[in-house]
């Protein structure tokens, strides 16, 4: 039997991981199906909804538009990598406090995308936050409480950094 799978070595949420995948498989599929990281969701598979937002070497990408082999030698951050030990990331905590989720299926993507925003710009305006998160669809909340949660997290993270 000929070998058809590719062997990929990568770093996921700070830990070295390896997996086998088909050459045409998306990173989203590899994360969800091969690696059991189902926090990253599939909403469209065309890069339009943001439910599969991850960080690839710190850059925000939709995992559905990345081929799994592209993860070779790179660092992947998913929603499962945001909380540390027993503490939630401030964004996660603020989403809870602001009731910024209803069904919750878009929430991991929003939190990862918002983390990328705050990494790049710790003190974003409301407008900047709305445009940064325009690649993430939420059908439940009307975005109001999501934007408030992100802005609140930003101001809290800024305070704790001082």
């Amino acid at each position, binding site marked *: 039997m000929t070998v058809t799978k590719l062997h990929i070595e990568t770093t996921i949420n700070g830990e070295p991981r390896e997996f086998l995948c088909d050459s045409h498989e998306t990173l989203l599929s590899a994360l969800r199906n091969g690696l059991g990281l*189902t926090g990253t969701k599939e909403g469209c598979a065309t890069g339009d909804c943001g439910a599969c937002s991850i960080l690839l070497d710190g850059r925000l990408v939709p995992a559905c538009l990345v081929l799994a082999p592209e993860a070779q030698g790179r660092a992947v951050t*998913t929603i499962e990598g945001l909380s540390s030990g027993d503490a939630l990331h401030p964004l996660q905590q603020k989403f809870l406090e602001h009731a910024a989720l209803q*069904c919750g*299926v878009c929430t991991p993507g929003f939190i990862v995308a918002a983390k990328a925003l705050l990494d790049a710009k710790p003190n974003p305006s409301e407008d900047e936050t709305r445009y940064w*998160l325009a690649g993430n*669809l939420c059908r439940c909340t009307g975005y109001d409480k999501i934007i408030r949660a992100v802005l609140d997290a930003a101001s809290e993270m800024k305070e704790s950094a001082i």
Partner: protein
Amino acid sequence: MTTPREFKYVGTRPIRHDGVDKVTGRASYGADVVWPGMLHGFVLRSPHAHARIVSIDTRAAEATPGVKAVLTGKDLPETTATIALGEAAIDLRDVGDNMLARTKVLYHGHAVAAVAATTIDIAREAAEKIQVVYEVLEPVTGIDRAIAADAPILHPALRTKGAASPGAAGPTNIASRLEFKRGDVDAAFAEADVVVEREFRTPMVHQGYIEPHACIARCGEDGRAVVWCTTQGPFVVRDACAAIAGLDPAHVKVIPSEIGGGFGGKIVVYLEPMAIALSRKAQRPVKMVMGRDEVFRATGPTSGSRVRVKLGAKRDGTLVAATASLWYEAGAYRGSPVGAGAMCALAAYKIPSFFIEAHDVVVNKPKVAAYRAPGSPIAAFAVESVVDEIARELKMDPIELRLKNANAEGDKAPYGPKYGPIGLKQILEAARNHPHWTSPLAANQGRGIAVGFWFNAGMNSSATVILDTDGSAAVVTGNPDIGGTRAAQAIMVAEELGIPVERVRPGVGDTDGSGYTDLTGGSRVCYATGMAVIRAAEDVRDQLKARAAQIWNVAVDAVGWENGRAIPPAGTEKAEAMTVAGLAAKMAHTGGPIVGRASLYAPMAGPAFGAHICDLEVDSETGQSKVVRYTVFQDVGRAVHPGYVEGQMQGGAAQGIGWALNEEYIYDADGVMENAGFLDYRMPVASDLPMIDTVIIEVPNPLHPYGVRGVGEVPIVPPLAAVANAMRDATGIRFTELPLSPPRVLEAIEAASAVSVGA
């Protein structure tokens, strides 16, 4: 009249119990599980909008290595069963035929076969080898074509139900026609000083939940099936699966996953009976997950429509007469929400004489599904636009005009019953007194207001409250939690037992683990299931009082209850008040575990109104418009968790704004949807919207112990007209067709300026 109850937990904003799982990615949705040995299912769909199936040859697919089962419509029994759903009923013959076509395909994307294989790639490739021979028929792509004399007929056996038009007989695409009337309409219009008549059109729009349909099912040699799926109604899925797959309902168990949005679109089944039937053939679990294009082409949407409304008013603003003619697309099978639309159309107003007719029309598009206040937004778009025109004709403030005609307690609703306490006047007064209404507008901006109505639903609910020895409690119902209902149920148990809300564990049971409960929909969960939760908690409290009576050796009736403690009758020796925890610790010695339960049928609900104010800014060079300020006023009866009540109001408004401004199913002449993806089906994103302000008004519903009405559906009703009325204010143009997308707006602005230049 009792004095209003003081609440300790109701009205607070605790963190939802399922929240940490959802912000960390641990919560399991429909597509998130893996079962050992599982296969992957793929659906082959029709490339034609209307065609007869001549033959299906599955041999090449079946011979493909890795393929374990192939299914076509012939493999499933034809059922005549129905599922009761409030006033309506789900016809499972149609649901089954919609899930997997038998003799005809009725829309582009209609399923014709399914394959289960060891990988999704093998299943997809094998499905492409299935040879389907079609006899292609002319597609019926809209209402005008459907009702033309020479229209192709979708269902040869279909006859118009209800009050048929004179002369109508024989095969038709009009599935039903109904009428509501009051008074002498012609005489009433003759009395009117001002009459406005307009015709409105709206396209099909989708619920747009972010999580596609997904399920996994296994069916064993004994004919017993277990289904895990994303659904609003596990009991609906159970009964539908049994009938469509040909199983005994006693042998089907449905486990609801976390649900990634539904809005009415996750009530009927599209995949689950297929997964069961494939699993029965393959004797392995089968997982099926839809792609987004399948969700658009073959699930949802709600109706496209044509609605004609005529209103007559006296010079002082009194509405005296109305007619409305509603035509809603049902999609491929009968059952549009036109009846509800007709009942909601004039619900806000005291109009002595009216005539409403409503038509349900089948067309070669996906079979419509419920969508948040089904039918009401379309009707409100038409009526509230005409009310706005009446206000303009009379030079009257549109809120004053609505207040003058607003229904109140004791008035007879256009759809029959007398209203109990309703908050329509209160929301209108709140809107009039809100700073938004009188704030100045900038250049190129306009302001619109509209109201909306929904009945809200009651129906069957069950709840179980389980007390633990440490005095904490679990509460289980059969309602999947879409928008925070578990948090509300935990608050209710905390309120009744006087234990901290964090010590209540709310959960969603499967169909074997909870009493029968109708679906999560109709804004009924906090109302009807909430009532069951409160009664189940009261049952626990009554049992605790009995245990205290036993400990104190006094009569049960003599035991009091205050602040979560049983109080001994005055003068009882050696007796001190006992907490829930204290009594729970003694359960084993006072009669054993305590479980409270309640099951009920709530025959009625709390009808509710909302009013929305929209400020729109329009770029006259591009036709692009943007909502710059938006305020939602709604009578919710009682807000149990105000954070999630506001969330419903904001989310419903955003969906309605999308419907008004951008969303539409676009079809080509062959009946193929051209925009079956989120790039081209343009739902609102964060940068499209401002903060959405909310004003919660609480006119308690006397049917509920706390006054809850239900909140989820009303907020999608007003936005269509609120936005269109703001567009009228900004541009001077009355748009009667949605969406108000840039090309349509620009064309109208250019046409209007050409006219004024020419004049």
